[in-house]
Structure formats: structure tokens, C-alpha cells
């Protein structure tokens, strides 16, 4: 297997991009990444696209062909593959692309992630999100996606492993960083009180515990590490790409306050990279709900069970404040959560941090960065580790 490098990154602004189509945002991110990698376009020999549900959001299937066509790659007949894994679609697409380059099957691969959600009404969007859990035995019984996350939070509070305030503070951390990211959907810091007083969605979780509905796209370009210098001086090494699965339904688990797939993927990733959680200085975790962010910090090994909430509440996950800066992009909560784009946008943020191009949210001297992407109720999780060169 060959070592793989990220040689270019690109991301659109996230938010309600009412004047931009799916294909427009997908191509915008891809063009930025190719430009960043100093490619002419002819070098690309493979495309992987993370997209969860264009079929339901914009009534367009066959996203792989659409992206190949509009990125100009169809004229070279470059193979394009669309990947779906619920919220983890982008994370899994990135892993597939890394494997394609590592194996020697491809030399220069364009990874994209895109979702156009806001063309649809909120009720339909929520129904689509509900279908990433068990559509028949959870959503079909009236148990919403938010309700499932709320039951995790309720149980954590009952067990004494997190307080309501600690869980809510994850949104404060994400917004703190979102204010520093020009591409974030929400660029405003908030207080704990704002989260606690936000309208109820599924108790104990309120509006500010939930990631927003967003449009957006992100892209990265990969090549073998040994070729990276041919294209750019500004690249990072991919040290690990691990993936793990779990039951589709939350009710089938022994323990609902940990995601076993995150634990398994993290263990595999640390082993691949030859490091431990303590070597990571910056991490992007999947905070589609605040409670999921708290769980991730524990499942990734940054904090012991029952201690992550306290660290977030005390502000120790902010840039420069603790051992690991968390969601410096603003996370899903403040940067935005265009489903298929999210996992790739996390990789973009980690690459920017390790290249030293993260501007006001730059983590000093970061050597290793990690991205965790989770699909549905942690039913598919990827953990990727990148290393500064």
C-alpha cells in the first residue's frame, strides 16, 4: 500500500444557498480544490462523491455521472462513484478514495461531498433524516431522529455521566469557532443560556442542540505521498482511514451512551497511524446533535466517560485552551451540515489546520488532526487521521 497525501482542498460557503443549484455548489468546491492543488484537470483519474439523498432532496439520482459531467471529467471518461452512508457519506467517500490511491488503482483522485437540502420543506427534510435510523421500527413508530438523540441525552443525565448544561455547552464551543470561519453558516458566538432557552425539539434537546439544514459542498484532491511535491509544497499526509459499523437501530445496542463504531474505528485508526488519542491536537467530530459531540470526545479516547462534558463546559475544547481543539470549523452546528458534504468538509478543516492556513482559528504547531464522521445513530463511522509534513 502507498502512503497518500491531500494536495488540494476546497469548500463552498455553507448555508441556505437559494440562488445556487446542486451542480453549481458541487463544481465550485471541486474547482477550488483542483486550483489549490495546481492541477490542470487532466491528471484526475478517479472521482468519489459523498451524497446522501439527492434522489429525495432534489429528485436527482446518478450524482456520480452529474459530477463527472459538470466537472469536465466525463470528456476523459474518468470513473466516478457516488457513496451513500447516511450522514457519514462524505467520510466514507474520502476513505474509498484514499484506498483507491493507496492500492495503486488510481493516481490523482478528486473527492467531493455535496448536498442541496433547502429546496425541500423542513418537514420533508426531517422525514429524510429520520430514515437514516431504522425507517420501519424507529421512524415508522413515531420515534424521530432527534428523539433518538434526546433519549441518549436523557439516559446520560440519568446515569450521571453528563449534565444538561454540559451537553448544551457543545453548541457554545461550535459557535465560538463558527464565528471565526468565513465559510460557516452561523458566524455568531452564543451563550449557554441561548442553548438552554431555545425552543424544545425533543426534550431535553432544543433547537440549538441540533445542526441546521444546509446546502454546501466540499472537496479534496489526493495523490501518492511521493508525488505530492510535483504539484504543491502545501500538502498533508493521510496517516489513517478507518471505518466501522454498528446496528442500524439504536434499540439493538447493549449501551446507548457510547457509539461502538466510533470506538472501533478510532482504535483501528490509531493503530494504523501508530499513535494514541493523546497525540491529536485538533479534531473535527460529528455534532449533528450536541450529545453526539460529547459522546464522540469520549469514544475517540480524548476524555474518559463522564469527563468530556465538563471539559467542553469549561471551554477546554476551544482553540489554544486545552490538549485538543474540537470543531475549529464550527462543527456541524455552526459551520452547517449539508449531509454529504460534512465528512469531506471535516477533512478540509483538518488539512487547513495542519498546513497552517486556518487563519484566526489556527491551532499552533498541530502535528496530528483527526476527523470523525458518523452515519445515522453511529451505524457507520469513519475516523481519519492526517499528519503535518
Amino acid at each position, binding site marked *: 500500500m502507498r502512503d497518500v497525501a491531500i494536495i488540494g482542498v476546497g469548500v463552498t460557503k455553507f448555508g441556505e444557498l437559494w440562488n445556487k443549484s446542486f451542480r453549481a455548489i458541487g463544481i465550485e468546491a471541486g474547482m477550488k480544490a483542483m486550483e489549490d492543488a495546481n492541477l490542470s484537470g487532466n491528471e484526475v483519474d478517479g472521482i468519489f462523491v459523498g451524497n446522501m439523498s439527492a434522489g429525495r432532496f432534489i429528485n436527482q439520482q446518478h450524482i456520480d455521472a452529474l459530477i463527472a459531467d459538470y466537472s469536465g471529467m466525463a470528456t476523459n471518461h474518468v470513473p466516478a462513484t457516488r457513496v451513500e452512508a447516511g450522514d457519514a457519506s462524505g467520510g466514507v467517500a474520502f476513505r474509498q478514495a484514499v484506498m483507491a490511491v493507496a492500492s495503486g488503482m488510481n493516481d490523482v483522485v478528486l473527492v467531493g461531498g455535496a448536498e442541496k437540502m433547502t429546496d425541500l420543506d423542513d*418537514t*420533508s427534510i*426531517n*422525514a429524510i433524516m*429520520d430514515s437514516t435510523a431504522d425507517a*420501519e*421500527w*424507529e421512524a*415508522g*413508530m*413515531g*420515534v*424521530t431522529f*432527534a*428523539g*433518538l438523540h*434526546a*433519549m*441518549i441525552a*436523557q*439516559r446520560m443525565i*440519568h446515569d450521571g455521566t453528563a449534565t444538561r448544561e454540559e451537553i448544551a455547552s457543545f453548541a457554545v464551543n461550535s459557535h465560538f469557532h463558527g464565528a471565526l470561519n468565513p465559510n460557516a453558516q452561523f458566524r455568531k458566538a452564543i451563550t449557554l443560556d441561548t442553548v438552554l432557552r431555545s*425552543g*424544545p*425539539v*425533543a*426534550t*431535553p*434537546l432544543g433547537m440549538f442542540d441540533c445542526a441546521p439544514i444546509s446546502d454546501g459542498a466540499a472537496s479534496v484532491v489526493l495523490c501518492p505521498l511521493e508525488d505530492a511535491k510535483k504539484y504543491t509544497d502545501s500538502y498533508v499526509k493521510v496517516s489513517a482511514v478507518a471505518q466501522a459499523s454498528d446496528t442500524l*437501530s*439504536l*434499540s*439493538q*445496542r447493549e449501551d*446507548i451512551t457510547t457509539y461502538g463504531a466510533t470506538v472501533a474505528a478510532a482504535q483501528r485508526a490509531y493503530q494504523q497511524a501508530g499513535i494514541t488519542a493523546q497525540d491529536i491536537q485538533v479534531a473535527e467530530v460529528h455534532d449533528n446533535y450536541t450529545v453526539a459531540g460529547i459522546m464522540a470526545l469520549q469514544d475517540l479516547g480524548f476524555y474518559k466517560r463522564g469527563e468530556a462534558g465538563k471539559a467542553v463546559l469549561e471551554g477546554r475544547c476551544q482553540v489554544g485552551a486545552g490538549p485538543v481543539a474540537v470543531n475549529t470549523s464550527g462543527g456541524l452546528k455552526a459551520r452547517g451540515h449539508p449531509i454529504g458534504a460534512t465528512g469531506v468538509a471535516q477533512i478540509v478543516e483538518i488539512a487547513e489546520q495542519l498546513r497552517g492556513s486556518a487563519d484566526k482559528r489556527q491551532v499552533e504547531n498541530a502535528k496530528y488532526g483527526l476527523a470523525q464522521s458518523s452515519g445515522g445513530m453511529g451505524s457507520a463511522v469513519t475516523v481519519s487521521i492526517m499528519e503535518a509534513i
Partner: protein
Amino acid sequence: MSTVAREWREIPGRYNLEGTKCENCGSIFFPARDFCPKCRRAGIGKISRYDVCRRGKVFSFSIVHDAPDFNNMLKPYVVAMVQTDDGVMVSAQLVDVDLDKVAIGMPVRAVLRKLSADGASGVIRYGYKFVPDE
């Protein structure tokens, strides 16, 4: 948008909490599984019907204020993960209950209720919900 066939085939589970049991290891499955994830090959041919206990306790719950489709008319409503007396975890709605009185550990039992009325195909879906077991 559910077809009649899709609803009809799930009736044993949804009306009667009918699951399955692996005779090889004793695991109970709800919803029903035809393949034991613990025994895998060793469990093939050893899966039989099992009726899940209709009584249990609330393991966790939430009051849902935002829901799509039919349930939008019912909000706010309670959802719960119920651990049945034979150890199966079932996610469902908890009804006929005072929202302030719901608590973890509360005894509940399964009842048959309307789940939704599907506008387009006209199918009315019925299935289990839980009520307080006094």
C-alpha cells in the same frame, strides 16, 4: 407513502410484538431476525417464533415537539425506549400519560393503537404503543 403490501407483511411484529428466538444461543430478536448475529452459521435453521413480553419499564424517553407527517398532529408526544420484562428493547410512543409524570423506570405495557393514516394510499397503519401499567 406506504403500499398495502409493505404494511401487511409487518403486521405480526407491529400488532403482536412477534419476534424470533435463536434456539442455539437463546437470544431474542425484535424486530424478528431470520439470522442470528451471534451464532451466524451455527444458528441457521434454529430460529423460531417468539412473542415478546408486552410489559416492561421505561429505559429512556423524550417529549417530541417536532415530527413529520401524521405525528405532527399529535405533538408534543412521548417516545420511549422500553425494556420489556424479557429484556428486549423496543422504541415506541408512550401514550395516555401525563407529560410531567414520565420517568425512567416507570412500568408500562403495550397496547394496539393507530400509528398513522397515509393520505396518498389511504392505508391506516396500526401498531404497538405503550401506556402506563398501573
